[in-house]
């Protein structure tokens, strides 16, 4: 078994861990760090449930080896709320607009949308749909997710006008 020692920042905390080199980033986060918010829906890069932010950029954690994240910063769904537990505006908007049902795809949706709103604070509906086109949801039909996102974008623009 090939192992490496890696140092990885996750949600602002630094971790030094020994990992098997074939362990995926998703499995490392879920089972070694016990951050189970990131989910595995397909393990072949289609469903998007495993999406995390790698140095701020959305990436499918099932398609990365944990060793590749050595020296990098990861943000997972657990890192979206504030230190004192206040929900991120996107999370709050999802709660307000019924943007989730079973919640399995939700962490991947949230990290993907955090990136969208950072790059594009005033997206159109079409741009929101495009942004989450790589995230599968079998429950909602996406409409409430789009509504929630547009509302969150508005709130975030009001709180932090560019």
């Amino acid at each position, binding site marked *: 078994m090939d192992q490496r020692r890696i140092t990885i920042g996750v949600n602002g905390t630094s971790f030094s861990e020994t990992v*098997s080199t*074939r*362990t995926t980033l998703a499995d490392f986060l*879920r*089972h070694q760090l*016990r*951050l*189970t*918010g*990131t*989910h*595995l*829906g*397909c*393990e*072949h890069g*289609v*469903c998007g*449930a495993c999406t995390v932010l790698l140095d701020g950029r959305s990436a499918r954690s099932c398609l990365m080896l944990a060793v590749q994240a050595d020296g990098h910063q990861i943000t*997972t*769904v*657990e890192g*979206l*709320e504030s230190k004192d537990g206040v*929900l991120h505006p996107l*999370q709050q908007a*999802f*709660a*307000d*607009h*019924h943007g*989730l*049902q*079973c*919640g*399995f*795809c*939700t*962490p991947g949706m*949230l990290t993907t949308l955090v990136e969208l709103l950072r790059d594009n604070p005033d997206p159109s509906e079409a741009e*929101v*749909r*495009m942004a*989450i*086109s*790589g*995230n*599968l*949801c*079998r*429950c*909602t*039909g*996406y*409409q*409430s*997710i*789009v509504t929630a996102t547009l509302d969150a974008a508005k709130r975030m623009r009001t709180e932090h006008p560019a």
Partner: protein
Amino acid sequence: MTTKTFGKRTRRLEDPDLLRGKARFVDDIHVDGMLHAAFVRSPHAHAKIVSLDTANALAMPGVHAVLTGEDLRAHALSDRLAVALPDRVYKQQRNRPILVDDETVYVGEAIAMVIADDPYVAEDAVSRVDIEFEVLPAISDCRQALSPGALNVHSDASDNLIAEFTSGYGDVNSAFAGAAHVFGESYWQHRGCAHAMECRGCLAAVDPLDHTLTLWSSTQTPLMGARLLAEMLGREEASVRVLAPDVGGGFGPKLVFYPEEAAVAIAAIVLNKPVKWIEDRREHFVSTTQERDQYWEAEIAVDDGGKILGVRGSLLHDHGAYTARGLTVPQGAVSALTLAYVVPAYRMDVKVVLTNKVPVTPVRGAGQPQGIFVMERLLDLAARTLKIDRADIRRRNLVPADAMPFKKGFVTRGGIPIVLDSGDYPACQADAVEKAGWADFPARQQAARAEGQYIGIGMANYVEGTGRGPFEQVSVKLASSGLIHVATGAAAMGQGTKTMLAQIVAEQLGGVMERVVVTTGDSAKIAMGFGGFNSRQTVMAGSSAHLAALKVRQKILQVASHLLEADAADLDIDGENVFVVGAAGMKISLRQVAKAMIGSAGFTLPGNLAPGIEATENVVIDAMTYANGCAVVEVAVDLATAAVTVTRVVFVHDGGKIINPSIVDGQIIGAIAHGIGNALYEWMGYGDDGQPLTTNLADYLLMTSTEMPPISLSHRESPTPLNPLGVKGVGESGVMPIPAAVASAVEDALSPFGVRITQVPIRPNDLAALLDKAGVVV
């Protein structure tokens, strides 16, 4: 009295944990010392297992055991999973083995089980299990299953016919003999899958102290699973606990109890260590049940005005390789067909056949979308030929509102008469058609054609049976903390069961949902029940919760009246207190009320009332309650690519009283997405040799956000008299009419070319062939 929570668009209790990544799906559960299972699955659709050698796998470091059917047999009273819904219509029993060891009959069937330190090693060892197969011919197409000399799906069977029955009523032969017009067609609905975002999985552990076997499972029916497992293992029910943690979607297939669940449970007993198994998506394609696969020959007899005189035909239903559940899907399909309309005579002959494919059990809709597809296609066929507007022909035949309750001539699979309880179908259709601008569409279509664009509009009505009985137990208790505890075997899988029950209970007990703590789907917390399927839990569990809450309310007010020395009629509950209406200061906390009924040694209870404040109810409702709706769909067809785009959906839904509008909207829109998937994208393909052709999510196409059309959804509320809340099921409504409405719209778009749509999904590859045949030149 104004409502506090019932009917309100509240936030969901489930959401904070789910949003923060703090939920616990089965793979999130960690038990120290747990081992991981992986299954060796058949690569052949049909083969004899000649030999099986586990030595190489067992020798790998980190592998604790490799178990086969023979190993498990010693620990179970039966090595097969008894069908959950026995039916005397069955001609042969084909129950699934836990681990097959003689003859495998579908690609994906579980043969052996590796248990190792982690899932990576377990998967390594799976490839080291050496199996010698004698490959046998396989039946992939159900139409071949009954042809003379057909090979058998199971070698020891005499044929592939697993059941045969006729559904109907009235004198169909006379109806057809005397009819002015008879139209007929053949229809095919292709196999599709449910694909919840969370695959299946379970974790079994035996408690070292009391030897209870606990199984956490991503299941829709924990209590049924507990009973089945207890019986299989020869244990008392109390020593088996099955509970569903957070479940990432069910949509039907998770209502079945699976071989893997039994195998993992037995492995935990044999190894005396917790064992976890998490299905991956590729396994999901070849081992989680699927549905839709049906071939229909159907005819409709009408008079000159398009009034229906009768419908008849035959259904050939592909059941897969085993009976994993009953005949719900074909029975539901033939029942649903005539529901929305007055059909004086009806007969459908059904043959249910085995094939060497994954077994078939309900997927959202459970056969009803297929029956609806056939009826709506027949109506379009009649309309087009007789030159009657498609909305008009339906209007002439819909069951009128003043005919409710309307007794259909036949019964459900359980022998319960089918009686449409409430609903105004013509008004619902009129509403949809008006909102969709149906009357203006021909002008729009003409204008589009002048520009070389082909747009079409289609419609379909549906009536679906919801609220499958007989009951769903709910207990409501005022705990000593003052919080209200609700427990039920109803299972949550994303549809907001906890919120739904909290809304119903909070309505009676103080109006604050966060004070209602709901436990769902745990066989240790509730004695009896079934779980989630057939859009039943709001009806069945909701009714029991309502009744139990009313009883608890009554008791609370009785106790409080003694403690406050006031008349119970002058009391109400708000938040955490019981108070005297009009006298704000006179109140007592629910906590105090609860504590008062616990009793004190040697002292009488207040008012000599019975101890405790709780109620457990099993509201029994055998008759199903029928929801209805109408969908109008617009499409655009690109002639060059033969691609269909759904450009708009208007959906008017009637599911009785609405408890939470957000949840109802979400359920319908989600199901509409699935319906569009069935209409255009979802094709679970098998080769002639029974090899699955689509085994990943790049080949099997689920709807994404960019394919969703704008949806205009509105609701009518025709309360049902069948339950105290007036509610009907809503989880499957959205999928019911969509494939039919889309087919209708595509045909309308292509009407200049006379293309008929008789199959779904309508893939561009296939539509292009139809266009070529019709001589369409681009």
